[in-house]
């Protein structure tokens, strides 16, 4: 493949791949797509793919078998989409290898398997199957970043271009000045998706203002929190969207240096993003003098080694520089002195992925989505015993109750809702009676919760609030980089007190000691990890005070989780 020389060359190429895409879907061969992603592989999608390949050949079905990314419906993996000639594509869920034969046989007979179908990609029902868009998981979603999830092959730049990809970058490159790009991002009021919600446009503007070169633009795809898996799904499912956002970022900052720092655990995300970069170089969308312009851009991928703290901005930059990833005091801020002591703009994966849409349709359009202070859509994940575990993309402002009970289907059979942990390891839980809070950057904070990166953990009555608090506090203790004392010494002290309580040796004054100690950790710690580390514990104490009380005063763990339960049982046995 030759590098595209200029804009016309790109247009010709785009027209050709678009035509090929149309022909694929209008042709008289079957088109069968299997979602291959980190989570579907865990559920056997590769085996399903191989089995299908074999059976289709055996049965002589003339079919094009393709890989696509996942569509966020973890609960329905592995999924297989079947387009029979002349019929709309039908998506089938939970197609494990044992179901492949019945599926292929039905197809051969020209039937649909309504009982296995999630929906049909069409406006109207087909063969008794409802439109996919009416599936309860999707009906309330608003998909911009995930619009083509499960539709395009993530390892094909042609698929991405055929669906309108890199148009935003071309628009920026040929029709807009860097200042105009920043102005649109500012007008969109896009706030950072990595947790803190800082307006991206303002950050980009500061980055432009600093007069020092070279400058760097960095994607934060570290995603080391224990409660979220959206960024890697985005990279696995549509890596070119993130790359296009990064390219636009580099153009806006007028720099040829882009980076993506990806958590090393997310192997498939790393692999697919690297492949996307390779393809973009090959086509001339990366490299020197892109499409005959003066703009050059080079993107490097760096991976992390399993330290949560490396997601923090300054730590991440040290990590890229081959040093231990430990945060530093600010100022100077990263937009003044970041990577290699140069101005650096760092944004979350999802933030960058939102940029192409903003450039294409305008900041005002984006700002009209969501709520006034939290515009646009948000990727959210739910973990825990809900019926439909997965990644959803919703407009900001939906209530947490709608999200949990409509989109994610509510609790699985046999589980009763107790609470939902918000903001991962950086905030507290919400109870049943607090679920009508809208999902945005600001509404949950007064309740002790937080939007954070958008990972919510639903827990049921088998989970003990004290033990859960210990789990979350222990995470922060373990992941503390040990650079500053309040965090290094304070968090182990909190865990120690919690362990005392869990073992039945809690004292009434312990809760005050926790509050007092937490205050010191929050106020005196150097970075964002320590500054919020006690929040989950304080939140649990606030949401479930009776449970802390039961442990301390009655020496009893209501959920029967803590070691105290065994002690009580033994004591009771001894009484006989």
């Amino acid at each position: 493949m030759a590098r595209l020389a200029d804009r016309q060359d790109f247009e010709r190429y785009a027209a050709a791949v678009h035509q090929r895409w149309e022909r694929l879907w209008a042709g008289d061969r079957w088109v069968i797509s299997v979602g291959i992603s980190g989570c579907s592989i865990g559920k056997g999608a590769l085996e399903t793919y191989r089995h299908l390949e074999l059976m289709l050949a055996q049965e002589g079905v003339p079919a094009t078998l393709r890989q696509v990314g996942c569509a966020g419906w973890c609960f329905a993996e592995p999924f297989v989409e079947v387009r029979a000639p002349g019929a709309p594509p039908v998506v089938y869920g939970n197609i494990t290898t044992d179901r492949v034969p019945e599926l292929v046989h039905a197809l051969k007979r020209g039937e649909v398997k309504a009982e296995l179908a999630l929906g049909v990609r069409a406006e109207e029902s087909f063969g008794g199957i409802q439109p996919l868009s009416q599936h309860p998981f999707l009906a309330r979603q608003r998909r911009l970043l995930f619009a083509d999830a499960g539709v395009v092959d993530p390892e094909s730049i042609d698929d991405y271009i055929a669906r309108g990809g890199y148009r935003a970058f071309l628009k920026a490159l040929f029709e807009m000045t860097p200042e105009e790009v920043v102005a649109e991002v500012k007008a969109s009021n896009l706030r950072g998706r990595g947790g803190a919600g800082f307006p991206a446009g303002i950050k980009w503007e500061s980055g432009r203002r600093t007069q020092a070169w070279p400058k760097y633009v960095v994607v934060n795809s570290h995603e080391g929190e224990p409660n979220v898996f959206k960024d890697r799904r985005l990279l696995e499912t549509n890596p070119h969207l993130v790359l296009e956002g990064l390219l636009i970022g580099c153009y806006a900052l007028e720099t040829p240096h882009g980076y993506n720092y990806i958590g090393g655990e997310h192997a498939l995300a790393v692999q697919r993003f690297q492949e996307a970069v390779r393809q973009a170089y090959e086509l001339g969308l990366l490299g020197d003098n892109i499409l005959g312009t003066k703009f050059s851009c080079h993107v490097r991928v760096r991976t992390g080694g399993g330290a949560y703290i490396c997601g923090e901005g300054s730590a991440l930059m040290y990590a890229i520089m081959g040093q231990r990833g430990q945060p530093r005091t600010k100022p100077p801020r990263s937009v003044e002195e970041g990577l290699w002591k140069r101005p650096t703009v760092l944004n979350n994966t999802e933030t960058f992925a939102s940029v192409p849409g903003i450039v294409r349709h305008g900041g005002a359009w984006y700002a009209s989505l969501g709520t006034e202070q939290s515009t646009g859509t948000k990727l959210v994940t739910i973990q825990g015993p809900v019926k439909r575990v997965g990644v959803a993309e919703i407009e900001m402002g939906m209530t947490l109750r709608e999200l949990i009970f409509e989109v994610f289907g509510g609790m699985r059979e046999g589980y009763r809702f107790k609470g939902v942990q918000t903001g991962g390891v950086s905030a507290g839980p919400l109870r049943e009676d607090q679920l009508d809070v809208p999902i945005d950057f600001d509404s949950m904070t007064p309740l002790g919760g937080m939007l954070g990166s958008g990972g919510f953990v639903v827990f049921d009555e088998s989970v003990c609030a004290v033990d859960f608090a210990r789990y979350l506090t222990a995470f922060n203790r373990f992941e503390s980089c040990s650079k500053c004392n309040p965090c290094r010494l304070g968090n182990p002290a909190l865990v120690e007190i919690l362990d005392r309580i869990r073992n039945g040796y809690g004292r009434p004054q312990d809760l005050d000691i926790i509050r007092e100690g937490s205050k010191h950790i929050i106020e005196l710690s150097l970075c964002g990890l320590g500054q919020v580390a006690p929040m989950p514990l304080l939140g649990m104490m606030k949401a479930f005070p009776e449970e802390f009380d039961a442990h301390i005063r009655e020496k009893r763990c209501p959920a029967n989780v803590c070691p105290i339960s065994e002690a009580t049982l033994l004591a009771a046995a001894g009484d006989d």
Partner: protein
Amino acid sequence: MAHHVEPAEQVDLAPLREVLASQFRPRDSQEAYELIVGACQEAQRLYGWVPPEAAQAIADHLGVTINRIYGLLTFYADFRTEPPGKHFLWLCHGAACYVMGSSRLIEVLRERYGLEDHGVSPDRELTLHVFNGCLGVCDLAPVIQVDHHTYWGRLTPDRLTAAIDALKRGDPVEETDGPAG
């Protein structure tokens, strides 16, 4: 922690050297530093851990000090500086897995198989790595990734012990992703 290091088997550095020569070619010292972690990850992929000889080879290749390499190997949770056992268990202790019972699995591994986090079982059959993040397959929680490719999901302590015993015998492990729900 007790430092029980096996008498080092001869490490064949040729495959590592090959990867370093083809994929790790820094243009300047800045990039050399940026490539250290990636090079160590390659070494671990090849050997299952980062042997001292490999660390030295990386230091020589990139022109950085061995101290710098060990500074990173000991900072990141993913790296192993001691040889692992025969099978590798990557146990997810993310929030979904916690809520669905990963603590009980950790307990079983400790009590029944003498496995601590980052430890090797006394019979050197198993290595355990407890992962604090999320493995990204929460629908299977609680879940363990085994030998870098298979997943045992929706585990209970009983299913875990059955699966491990089968693994040690070399038998296929039944129903690795548990009952659907």
